[in-house]
């Protein structure tokens, strides 16, 4: 009897559904096609002393392949990918930390 992993297909589908339902931005990379993502811009205490913004973009890996240094335009502002995006969950999605690029 062969073993099955019934949640694998569901998980792929859930990633697609989650992104289609919860994406709040469309990101435009300097090269490549636009893709949807979940954008977050939250202030945090850096060095426990200064409030600075931690900007992240969660996206489906099948829709984009981001690398450190890539440029994105989101809501008219330009951002640079600060470091290699971290895969999350089963590896269908990733979170990229973004740095706002001065206009």
């Amino acid at each position: 009897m062969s073993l099955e992993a019934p949640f694998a297909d569901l998980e792929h589908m859930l990633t697609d559904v989650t992104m289609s339902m919860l994406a709040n931005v469309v990101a435009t990379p300097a090269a490549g096609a636009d893709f949807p993502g979940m954008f977050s811009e939250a202030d945090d205490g850096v060095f426990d002393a200064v409030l600075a913004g931690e900007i992240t973009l969660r996206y489906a890996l099948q829709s984009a392949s981001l690398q450190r240094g890539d440029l994105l335009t989101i809501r008219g502002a330009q951002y640079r990918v600060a470091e290699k995006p971290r895969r999350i969950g089963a590896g269908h999605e990733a979170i990229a930390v973004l740095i706002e690029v001065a206009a």
Partner: protein
Amino acid sequence: MSAHVRTQVRAALALQLESIAAVAGRVHPARTARFDPQDLPCLVLGTPSEQLVRLGVAAPCIYQRSITVQVEGYASAAPLETAADDLSADVERAVAAAGTLGGLVKAQLALAEVQTEVDDAVSPALAMFRMTYLATVITASAAPDAAL
């Protein structure tokens, strides 16, 4: 009653550090709420610890207090580490020029350690340094507000 000598040391040092043009009006003699990036560069002073040694056997006790004085600096200008180094160099010069803080401390504050950190994964990118100085103050046990 005057303030504790720790408070006096921070206040006197803050006054000296105000001479640094880059942080004029942005020297804080004690920890405050978190800063907005537009408030940088700035300096924050702290006296997180002190060691006391009793001098002689006279009553009341006479204490030699070795006070740890920390000067923390925050900057967001690029290049970050250079900005932190430049500002910490200004602090070193200002502290050296401060001498004994008008007789409050027994000798010029001695720099013991410098730590620098950079976080370039936030907006704006930030640098901080923490300079640890040692200050020696002598007081009587009943008068921690009066340097002898």
